[in-house]
């Protein structure tokens, strides 16, 4: 950064970015002649790669930049604000540049602009220089010698980014042919490149179809495809946000070593500041289309200049939080019986009397654990196949046992496919266990018995769930009031007291009461998740299951929701089963942790103890893979 060059070190080689955190944002918005009303972009002659119309702001970098973005603005429609607003940025040779920001900050639009994949009706002003070529000026034909050849692209979701109807081999063949990379034979090259991304048996892989590969394998195939033509610039848009933490580490290690070996630059679009801290040389922070701050990763993390950057850094869930003293359990063992209810009425002194505790057929005693599962087993029958003609069973949950004490938050941690969500389904009664017991506040359900409607209802009063995706878990046709009324109707709350109760629930999760009349589409992701939490709290459950409840949220929103959940635990004396794959989130919120892999719980214990001294090798592996440990 120009404003605090600190002598020798990486700062010397940094490109100079005309946006400094001390400049007011107003200066960064496009000037009126480049606004939506303006007809065309400036002639390229006005801005040369060597400088610009205002050289004071664009100090020439010491080394030649690989790519220079100058005053880039992008409008999707004329009546929307610019998705990218006057962004200027250099990408240096052989560097990893991270672009961070919330969703909607314009980071993906910036990436799409560089690789020329913005929709046809998009309006662009400014320049994107790659060497001597302004990419914003290219014809469709000319683009073909850049896309895939000079610029490689690695997509976010490997599950959706390969064409399911073609074999892996066909993907390679088409790409190799498009760039005339192997005039003598594509297969040889494809096999080499698959081996390069550390995939076994490449010959067999070429015959396979995408759905036969795991997410991590698919992402490695996509990396091999992106690097086929040996591009100088690789753009990776959230390349591992859909992958498990162990797979994420492998894929990023691979991507890092390949870009270094090939002398390419990597532009890493991400919302994960832990990743940035570990892997990026420089960072650009985006907010509402503007690059509000950029500089070397170390500088930005240690001395963030912009308040938004500080906000982002403050919101990062930290593994080190595990070592903070755990907050005392809100319900002392000494006061059995009445305590949970007392905890609740303290937080809601004006609760209407229409929620009589007689609804609950189970007597509450504090010496009973809130939730206990013992020797839980769930088998799924698989289809018959050639290998096992008699049909096969998959043991999704294998003799799992744990206890959530009253007022405790237990985190169930595992990768996708570990069985953690199956356990949630079993506890909620959405699936029936093959063997074992589940006890919720003294109410035990046996394996093999189909619960009666009454049992289901009782269980619904005791235990509720918040799911991962607030965009999918709320009916778009329902107003917030109707979403929240549903559990109240089931719980036989009198019609007259429902509006008041709905307002209370909204306030409880930090939303204004007038939000009741809105539809989910009018709410942000965080607001939706708050509504989902309010709905789960409506029947006053003893236990709240959060199934990846903060995983789909932006880092700032995630921090807020975690705060809210923490508050609610203390106010309401809630017990919580927090299902997640994110160990840093566990460190922030949970008291105890259970680590699950292949349906088996391999380690259980208090969070500080397990995180400081993990016993099981799998736990150690998981902890080691958490990004950003050195920085946060």
């Amino acid at each position: 950064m120009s404003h605090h060059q600190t002598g020798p070190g990486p700062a010397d080689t940094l490109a100079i970015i005309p946006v400094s955190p001390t400049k007011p944002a107003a200066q960064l918005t496009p000037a009126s002649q480049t606004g939506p009303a303006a007809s065309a972009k400036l002639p390229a002659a006005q801005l040369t790669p060597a400088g610009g119309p205002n050289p004071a702001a664009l100090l020439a970098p010491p080394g030649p930049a690989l790519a220079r973005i100058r005053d880039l603005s992008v409008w999707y429609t004329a009546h929307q604000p610019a998705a990218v607003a006057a962004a200027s940025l250099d990408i240096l040779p052989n560097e990893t540049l991270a672009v961070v920001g919330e969703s909607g900050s314009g980071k993906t639009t910036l990436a799409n602009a560089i690789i020329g994949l913005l929709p046809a009706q998009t309006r662009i002003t400014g320049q994107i220089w790659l060497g001597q070529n302004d990419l914003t000026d290219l014809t469709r034909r000319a683009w073909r010698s850049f896309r895939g050849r000079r610029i490689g692209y690695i997509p976010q979701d490997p599950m959706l980014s390969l064409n399911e109807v073609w074999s892996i081999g066909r993907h390679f063949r088409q790409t190799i042919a498009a760039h005339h990379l192997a005039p003598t034979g594509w297969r040889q090259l494809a096999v080499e490149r698959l081996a390069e991304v550390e995939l076994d048996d490449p010959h067999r892989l070429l015959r396979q179809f995408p759905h036969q590969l795991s997410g991590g394998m698919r992402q490695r195939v996509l990396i091999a495809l992106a690097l086929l033509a040996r591009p100088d610039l690789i753009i990776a848009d959230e390349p591992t946000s859909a992958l498990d933490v162990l797979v994420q580490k492998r894929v990023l290690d691979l991507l890092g070593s390949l870009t270094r070996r090939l002398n390419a630059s990597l532009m890493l679009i991400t919302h994960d500041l832990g990743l940035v801290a570990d892997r990026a040389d420089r960072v650009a922070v985006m907010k509402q289309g503007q690059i509000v701050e950029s500089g070397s990763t170390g500088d930005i993390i240690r001395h963030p200049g912009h308040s938004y950057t500080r906000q982002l850094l403050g919101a990062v869930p930290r593994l080190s939080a595990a070592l903070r003293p755990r907050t005392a359990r809100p319900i002392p063992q000494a006061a059995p019986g009445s305590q949970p209810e007392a905890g609740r009425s303290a937080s809601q002194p004006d609760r209407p009397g229409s929620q009589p505790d007689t609804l609950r057929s189970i007597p509450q005693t504090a010496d009973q654990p809130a939730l206990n599962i013992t020797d839980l087993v769930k088998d799924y029958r698989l289809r018959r196949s050639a290998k096992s003609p008699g049909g096969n069973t998959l043991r999704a949950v294998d003799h799992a046992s744990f206890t959530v004490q009253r007022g405790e938050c237990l985190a169930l941690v595992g990768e996708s496919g570990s069985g953690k969500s199956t356990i949630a389904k079993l506890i909620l009664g959405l699936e029936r266990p093959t063997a074992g017991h589940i006890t919720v506040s003294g109410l035990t359900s046996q394996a093999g018995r189909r619960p009666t409607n009454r049992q289901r209802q009782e269980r619904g009063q005791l235990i509720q769930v918040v799911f991962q995706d607030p965009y999918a878990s709320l009916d778009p046709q329902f107003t917030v009031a109707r979403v929240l009324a549903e559990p109240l109707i089931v719980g036989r709350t009198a019609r007259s007291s429902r509006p008041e109760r709905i307002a209370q629930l909204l306030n409880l999760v930090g939303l204004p009461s007038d939000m009741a009349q809105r539809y989910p589409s009018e709410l942000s992701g965080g607001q939706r998740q708050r509504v989902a939490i309010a709905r789960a709290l409506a029947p006053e459950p003893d236990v709240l299951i959060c199934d990846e409840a903060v995983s789909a949220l932006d880092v700032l929103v995630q921090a807020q929701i975690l705060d809210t959940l923490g508050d609610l635990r203390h106010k309401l004396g809630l017990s919580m089963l927090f299902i997640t794959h994110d160990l840093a989130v566990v460190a922030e919120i949970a008291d105890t942790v259970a680590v699950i892999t292949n349906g088996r719980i391999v380690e259980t214990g208090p969070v500080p103890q397990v995180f400081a001294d993990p016993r099981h090798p799998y736990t150690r592996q998981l902890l080691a893979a958490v990004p950003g440990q050195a920085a946060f």
Partner: protein
Amino acid sequence: MSRYVINRVGQAVIVILAATLLLYAMVYAMPGDPVRALVGEQRSSQLDEATVAQIRARYNLDRPFLVQYGLYLKGVLSGDLGTTFSERPVTEIIAQALPVTFRVAVLTVLIQAIIGIGVGLIAGRRRGGLLDGSVMVVTMVLIGVPTFVSGYVIQYFLGVRWGWIKPTVSAQAEWSELIVPAAVLALGSMAFLIRFTRSGVSEALRADHVKTARARGLPEWQILISHVLRNALIPIVTVLGTEFGALLGGAIITEAVFNVPGYGQQVYQNIIRGESAPTVSLVIVMVVAFVLVNLIVDLLYAAINPKVRYVSHA
């Protein structure tokens, strides 16, 4: 793959057996005496008991239902589909009418596939454009016009007014004569196919894998054909296949307009004449054709969608 094929063939056999049983039972349960239908209302009162018994015995009408069905099935398996009242074998009727209908069906599906998929692809690529808008209006009109209207109008202008074609089809029903009837038949469902292709294409265009393919620098034609249309085709093949199967049952109205000696006309005439046994046979052949075509479509579906192919023995 082989397991999938065996499964599907087994299912088809069961469907055909069930359909024949159901049809036979329905005709069996129909009111009216088959002997009367055979000899006619007036003469049946003049028949003596012995003759009636003789006729019943000849057509197995004196046996229990399941035995009758079994004997019928045995006949069918040995190639005997029964005869009409005028002693004409049903197999002969089928041999005459089915090829004509087959030609009409092939032409119809070809016209639909070429125009429907082509126009749908262009409209879906530029969704919201001028061409897309006009295509939508035209297809809306096409959906609204019934075949007997479009059939008569086209017959009048092309055949009578301008004399470009013969207004009716000859007894030979050559391929070339059948193009216009097939086009009329194609019109109605073509609108549906265009819309189906259009939405499939515009959805496929937004897919992540298409974006990634573009980012790899594949030429635009390859993206359209191999990544957009190829994926959009998967459900379209099912639509076209079902359409073909349905067309093999004949198209009574269009065949009537253009005087096509097809399957629909035969079924219609047999129903009108009250020929119950030939009707059952004709309809059963229709069912078998429909099931077979759907079986082929399912196997084709597996061939173009690797996910179906491999999941079935994973």
